[in-house]
């Protein structure tokens, strides 16, 4: 079965126009060339894919409860939300 990690990586890879195999857990979104618009789109895609609501305000991403500092952080945050909101 496809894990949360695989699906999040697939979403991020699509946004970055990369193959999922090129996305490392240690990458930041900046490393992958994803800008603020790309980030908002990725979060939308994640919400749709997992049917969850992601607490994120584009005005001040750092202040949001949702950690976007790396691919690993995003995967972890989504895993938490899926568990919490299921």
């Amino acid at each position: 079965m496809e894990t949360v990690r695989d699906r999040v990586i697939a979403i991020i890879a699509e946004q970055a126009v990369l193959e999922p195999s090129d996305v490392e857990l240690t990458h930041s979104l900046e490393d992958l060339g994803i800008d603020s618009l790309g980030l908002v789109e990725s979060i939308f895609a994640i919400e749709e894919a997992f049917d969850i609501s992601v607490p994120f305000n584009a005005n001040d991403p750092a202040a949001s409860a949702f950690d976007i500092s790396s691919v690993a952080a995003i995967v972890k945050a989504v895993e938490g939300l899926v568990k919490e909101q299921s």
Partner: protein
Amino acid sequence: MKRVVITGAGTINALGHNVPDTLAAMREGRCGIGPLDIRDVDRLAVKIGGQVRDYDEATHFNRQQTALYDRFTQFTLIAAEEAVAQSGLKFTGELSATSGVVLGTAGGGVNTWDENYRNVYEAGKNRVHPFVVPKLMNNAAASHLSMEYNLKGPSFSVATACASSNHAMGQAFWMIRSGMARAMLTGGSEAMLCFGGVKAWEGLRVMSKEACRPFSLGRSGMVQGEGAGVFVFEERGHAVKRGADILAEVVGFAMSSDASDIVMPSKQGAARAISAAVADARVAPESVGYINAHGTGTAANDKTECAAVADAFGAHADDLMISSTKSMHGHLIGGTGAVELLACIMALRDGVVAPTIGYEEPDPECALDVVPNVAREAKVDVALSNAFAFGGLNAVLALRAA
């Protein structure tokens, strides 16, 4: 070149249903933003807005009229009635032929789109009211003003998102200045506070769920508003000759395009529009005492706008006042510049500068005098009104005391 003056002003917005009530609210620093009272609000993540309260269309318009007037057109007609009455103008003969209407709106009849999509998609109806198209079109408000006041000169609508009203008023100004028109009704209107209109903005993730706090550290984004502002712009000689009360003179206008990003603002684009408006007005930059900021309350706009003002004015940026009245009436999108021009007129005419309310803590990236929380008495000779739209389209007006 002809000189252009303002001889009438009208509005309806979250702060009041006319100009005196709106200016009183701005003086008191009153907030018009509150819980949204719209259908399906429980399905929205953003539940606040600067809504026009205590409004019943039936007290202003009959059944035949409401069948044709979307909420944005209704707001326009109400604001125009106040403006034209104040100006004392009657548009007949030669004046009628040389007077027109230029109005800004970003969305036009959004409520009409929303209601009719509900009917055909949600309710499964296969028939819509015959006037859906003439009700929702962006130029409906301009056309109804033209008909209502017999304005037969150049008339059209402008849609440049959040700069629509300023672009519209700039065109009206240039038409009179060039001698092409004698008088113009101008300004703008927006009525997007319906389920679809708010849901679309929610998607961008820049909306605040609590308040609009421009320039304040920890601000959480923008808040939508609704309403209209309409002005009578008139050739100065014509106004003086008939002894009209002149509210202010429009002295300059400039536009620029960032040519860079569809949503992120650019300091250079904004600064170029500000400097060009001051140059067009042929006033010294040091004579500008007040700027009504675009001041949306987003992280991106506010720091970019402050940097642009600092660039355009140099050391004088620290001496002028800049406030965002969106903190009180919300962001009227395509109508915002029109309502905000009222704050410029109040500064020039009454010597009262409207505050930026909801201000909590200084942001080092917005280190200008933003007139926090309390209105200020000051003599202002020249005022600017900034508008910077999504899509990177900037429009700045310059006004001088009459």
